[in-house]
């Protein structure tokens, strides 16, 4: 079903008039902070990332991937991990200042003993404003639903907040800085026993440059 949707989406983009389409790709420098269970399991890291954007009419898609090298930071953790962070957003611009978005977020560490692998579906809204000369600023908020974790458990309360600054220097070159903060109130039932809180929190910054064509 998802493949069919993807094919329909790609066909729609391909069939749209050239003037209504805009595609861009770019690279980013990503830096993140990850915490889990308690303040003693805290990691910080940086890494490269890629960005892809596609828009036609009032629909836009943005996808990003980052390869983070996370290291323990001021806690009891002794070893770091490598993580692949994947994000995707499908946005519909409902008004000049308001868009609705849906998408996915997924983090996959190479060492699941060090950090959780988790994924969720995001649904939210974004408000955006032009600052002039091609610059825009946006604030977004999402609910992260259907979260699943490699270590089990569930997160009935999972929210995401984001701040995005774009500055299009020309019709082809855009600089971006964005920030995302995720809070997932994960709970588990170790050994089938009582519910135990095992919250996760991730803060991620991204600075990048995308080239449009």
């Amino acid at each position, binding site marked *: 079903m998802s493949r069919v949707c993807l094919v329909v989406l790609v066909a729609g983009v391909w069939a749209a008039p050239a003037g209504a389409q805009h595609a861009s790709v770019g690279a980013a420098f990503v*830096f993140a902070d990850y915490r889990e269970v308690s303040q003693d399991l*805290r990691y910080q890291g940086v890494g490269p990332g890629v960005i892809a954007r596609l828009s036609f009419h009032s629909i836009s898609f943005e996808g990003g991937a980052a390869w983070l090298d996370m290291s323990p930071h001021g806690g009891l953790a002794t070893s770091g991990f490598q993580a692949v962070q994947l994000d995707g957003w499908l946005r519909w611009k409902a008004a000049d200042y308001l868009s609705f978005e849906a998408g996915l977020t997924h983090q996959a560490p190479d060492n699941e003993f060090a950090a959780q692998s988790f994924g969720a579906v995001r649904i939210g809204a974004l408000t955006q*404003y032009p*600052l002039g000369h091609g610059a825009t*600023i946006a*604030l977004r908020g999402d609910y992260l639903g259907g979260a699943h974790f490699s270590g089990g458990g569930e997160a009935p309360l999972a929210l995401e907040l984001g701040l995005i600054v774009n*500055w299009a220097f020309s019709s082809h070159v855009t600089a971006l800085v964005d*920030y995302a*903060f995720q809070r997932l109130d994960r709970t588990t039932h170790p050994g089938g026993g009582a519910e135990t809180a095992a*919250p996760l929190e991730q803060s991620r910054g991204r600075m990048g440059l995308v080239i449009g064509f």
Partner: protein
Amino acid sequence: MRSMTGRRLVLLMVCCGGALAPRQGAAQARGNTLRQAQDAYDALDFSRAAVLARRALTERLSAADQTHAYELLGFSYSAIDSQVKAVDAFKQTILLDPDHQLDPNKVSPKITSLFYSALGQVLVVRQLRVDSARFVSGQGAVPIRFTVTSPARIRVRAVNANTSLAVDSAVGTGQYTMRWPAQLPAGGPVSAGTWLLIVDATAAQTTFSASQAVSVSYGTVDTLPHLTSLPGYKELPEIEYPPPSWRPLGLSFLLASGAAVGAYTLNNSALGSPPTRELTVAASAALLTGLIMTLRKPAPRPAEANIRYNRLLHEQLSRRNAEIATENARRRQQVMLAIVPLPRETATR
């Protein structure tokens, strides 16, 4: 007593109009008899003038001299109270020169009334005039003006080498204006060249015809130029520069603050204080961008009202040019007729 009455009448004629009898500068060219008749009239010897005028008419005279001789005869008879003879003489004058006119400022009312009495007793077509005209075939006509002196059946025709077209007809007397559209019965324009406009007036067994030659030539109908702008309307600039404002910095501050407050609010205290590095970088970038945009000259923005106005203007212009193109296509199929009267033909009886 009779002689006294006659003298009084003569004196009256002299006072009223006899002294204003025609004196033509071309009298020298006329025959001696006609000149003597004129001299006798000028000397108020009207009986002798009548005798000499009648004698002159037996001589060989040009048409103009014949007309003058009959007119002099009419004047002389009028002066000696021979009204019937005067009317007869004027009738001959009119028949020789249907357009002949008396100047009411120089001729006595008595003579003038006799002249008009004669006019009513003959059938002629007088003062046939055709104006110069220029019009698109099928959309105009050239006026033909004339006067018929007696009740008659009137027919106006246009004739050229091989075509005879009926223009109009009427029954009556007086002044007429008829219009010739210069069209064939099938609807097309008449051929270019010389046409003769003939007015036939028929009463009982009397017929009088007058004609006027006209030249018909073809021309092209002027086309309309396409418009590049609507008169009285000009396009408005589609880009406007908003006045400088602190809005970009304010917006950046507001949204960055919102993100910071949100992050601090969402932060799970069980995981320690909220991370600041990422937020600081992003918020700083937002504030810096807002500050730069505030300090820079505002970016031009589309003036939506002007754009809509210009779009309406362009639509109107396109519509008007489409109408002009349609009109020009129609005009290119039309013929402009130029009709000019030629020197007048003489009347025939």
